[in-house]
């Protein structure tokens, strides 16, 4: 083998950086809110417009319906602490953001959550993550990103383990915003 082998070294260094990054913080998730009111961030009335998975400079859209986008947004907001299905439902019901979701558009879009439904919703979110991981070539178990933890009793707690960032589209710029 002759010629320029420098690309090999560069790719090895890049892979090592990615490995260190993924071992520490998990994949990167970007949540896009639209209908943002001027001067506010993540205020009631905004919509969880899209959720994207980022890896190696690429982003792919997670194919999630409204209920799952709301749940994943909530888990991202509260990812510092594992929660049971009952705690998740209580948090969603109590939050004005989810009660008034999308209200700034003039057509609110909300969903009701039940404790018995959370487990199935978590399973579906993991399915969407699995497909996104495959699309970006990320070999990761979705169960290691949206994790389930047992407790001393029979209760299961859920927690999102990922880097998350939120971006906002102002109310007057929705039509002109382009997705990557």
């Amino acid at each position, binding site marked *: *083998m*002759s*010629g*320029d*082998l420098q*690309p*090999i*070294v560069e*790719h*090895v260094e*890049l*892979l*090592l950086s*990615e*490995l260190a990054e*993924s*071992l520490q913080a998990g994949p990167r998730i970007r949540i896009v809110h639209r209908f943002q009111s001027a001067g506010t961030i993540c205020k009631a009335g905004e919509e969880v417009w899209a959720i994207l998975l980022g890896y190696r400079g690429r982003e792919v859209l997670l194919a999630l319906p409204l209920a799952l986008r709301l749940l994943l947004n909530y888990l991202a907001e509260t990812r510092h602490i594992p929660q049971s299905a009952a705690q998740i439902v209580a948090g969603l019901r109590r939050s004005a953001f989810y009660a008034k979701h999308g209200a700034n558009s003039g057509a609110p879009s909300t969903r009701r959550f039940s404790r018995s439904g959370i487990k199935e919703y978590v399973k579906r979110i993991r399915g969407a993550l699995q497909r996104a991981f*495959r699309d970006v*070539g*990320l*070999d*990761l*178990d979705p169960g*290691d990103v949206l994790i389930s933890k047992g407790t001393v009793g029979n209760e299961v707690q859920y927690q999102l383990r990922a880097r998350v960032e939120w971006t906002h589209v102002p109310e007057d710029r929705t039509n002109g915003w382009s997705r990557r």
Partner: protein
Amino acid sequence: MAHILLLNFDPAAAKAVDALLRGKGHHVTVEASDHSQIASDLHRFDVVMIDMSLDNAAGHAYVTAVRNHRAEHGPRPMLLCISRIYRGPRFALDLERKGARVVYVR
């Protein structure tokens, strides 16, 4: 400083890549065992590099072995496939879907 495993390389190519990576301070292992043996050793490495220039069954078997290991144990080792022969975007895409990074070298 990382532990790197080279698979499916011919001796001359292995020697060149080995010297290059050792010069950068990495620990390099050049493995000649078949893919059925490799799975038990993968936990020792940070990066596995497979020479796919021949696009042979052995190379693809190694890729599958690493992919299966990562599916069970996590993102380590990372997988880098190199090729000295350009085989088009489909070739690279198929490997990337298995979690590999692909680089063409001359």
